[in-house]
């Protein structure tokens, strides 16, 4: 199976699952009754659209498969993503962001920002040298401190450090 086909099948599966799960939730969940306009009327409409979209995507896959033009399934200008690189980036940035934010709340904004920025630059920036890793993060820390603490007076829990 080619890459585009897998992607489209996954897209259809995600959309259909979400739509069906939503309708089941409406059937079994505790929704407050209201005459003519129940709370779920809009979510229910959205779930119907999701299911219709999923069926539409599957129909398009079938049609393109019959015509043997599966390569044309991809949208124009569709970008081919490097899944390993995206995985690494998500791990470093998003999971890192969770730890960074916990550190901001518990250790301190400036120290956490300098450290997290240094890690991101070291991992992500091509041609990053020790000199830039030492210079750029403190500058970013300074900007963040000026913008958020001095300029707009953001309040944070009292940190362990500064």
């Amino acid at each position: 199976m080619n890459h585009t086909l897998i992607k489209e099948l996954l897209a259809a599966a995600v959309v259909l699952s979400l739509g069906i799960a939503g309708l089941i939730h409406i059937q079994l969940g505790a929704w407050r009754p209201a005459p003519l306009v129940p709370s779920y009327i809009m979510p229910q409409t959205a779930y119907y659209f999701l299911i219709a979209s999923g069926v539409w995507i599957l129909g398009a896959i079938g049609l393109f498969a019959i015509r043997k033009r599966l390569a044309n399934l991809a949208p124009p200008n569709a970008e081919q993503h490097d899944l390993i690189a995206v995985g690494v980036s998500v791990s470093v940035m998003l999971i890192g962001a969770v730890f960074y934010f916990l550190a901001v709340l518990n250790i301190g904004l400036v120290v956490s920002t300098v450290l997290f920025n240094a890690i991101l630059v070291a991992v992500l920036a091509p041609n990053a040298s020790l000199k830039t890793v030492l210079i750029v993060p403190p500058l970013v820390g300074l900007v963040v401190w000026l913008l958020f603490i001095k300029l707009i007076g953001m309040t944070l829990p009292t940190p362990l450090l500064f």
Partner: protein
Amino acid sequence: MLDLIIQASQLAFHPYVLMYVFLGVLLGITLGAIPGLSGDMAIALLLPFVFFLEPAMAMGLLVGIYKGGLFGGSISAISFGVPGTPGAAATSIDGYQAKLKGKPSKALHTALYSSVIGDTTSDLVLIFIAVPLAAIALTFGPIEFFALYAFSLILIAALSQGMVAKGLAVAAIGILLAMIGRDPITGAVRLTFGIPGLAGGLSLIPVLIGIFAISEVVFQGAKLWRRKVDKLMDDVAEQASLLQGYDISKDQLTWAEFKSTLKATYIGAAVGTFIGALPGAGQSLAAFMSYGLAQRFSKRPEEFGKGSLEGIASAESGNSATAGSTFIPLFAFGIPGSATAALFGAAFILMGMTPGPSLLSDNTEIIYALFFTLIFANLVNLVLGKLLLPYYSRIAMIQPGYMIPAVFILAIVGTYAANNSTMDVWVLLFAGLLGITLKLLSFPLAPLVLGFIIGPGAERALRQSMIMGGGDWWVLVKSPIAIGFYIAAFALILLFTLALRAKK
């Protein structure tokens, strides 16, 4: 009326507002010139600061960034063949060829002038059309409004990436995200899955920054990690070195050359203004359609693709002419027709103004001041562009490796700072992850944001219509205006589908 204009101009030309416009244009051009960063991303990041500024100043800053970003994208497109923003992709076709032929200054100046002309045309159309349209919209009832919301969602879903099914699916996801929290009619808590922090619903800022900025920054991070940018930067440095030995005095845009591009510029301005007013059509489509039409009506169509100044002018004018008209649906009906309009809509909401037909009547002074700012920002764009053009090509060489981590950190801290809310940061990261997943599966993101923003309004209109119709769904097609919207949506989709097929 005269009093209103005087008051609005006093507001718009206050020294602080002017300073923010200058700052915004400078920031917009700088960020737009760096591949991977865009004006939209900058606007999303600056939303938390909107709280701390006067409305006129905040609008000046955001308008400046938007307009600067539109032109900034063309700098790296022309200098290095790498569009700084998606809308500048068409500009790079002829712009980069012109640069390779030793005409970078002519190409950049053509882009600047056509961008400003297209943008100003579009702003004027906005100013003269939004007010009467808003007056018409005030007569709409819930049935017409629901049809209008449906019209916008269908159109944006169909035109965002040419994939109707995926567009509709993400619009539905956007609506579902907007439904999280307390039901405005029954007061019941919906779709929170037992998380108390979600009872108040999802805030605009984390959702918008997560969808637009976080997902994009993570993808840029992935590219950096793979050292794709390493090669790109080597190319950029190599291309920059080519510029060292060239004589700028032989590369001045003459009056005759400027005049020869005017027809293409006007074509771009007209096409861009029309496309910009349609929800979902976007800058890229406007630029490519303008480029195609300008080539068809050009006396020298064979030069297109080989460094034609007309090609640059049409693409850049078409791209920039969406700037003003994209606000028409937002001002008149409260429907953001593009990602940028959605961000501005969010900014209005954060400043306590509700986008829609009452926006103009409730905030007349601010909105008229915004009209002045829109036009003034074009002048600033022209002046700053003209003065700093020689230096902008070097701005495009700033390594994204150092910018991306800083942008990412600003997004996290900015989101927290907006409401001092920890929950907002978790929502931001969730929205970022959602944006990444949808991008990996080739879903367009703009319909999701539109669905999220207009979801509550659409729900209110639907429920009011259902009450009026006694629970009968057929009530939705009992108004001639509503039927007109549904027919118009399908007619426009058909028109664009046929146009795209003809292009293929």
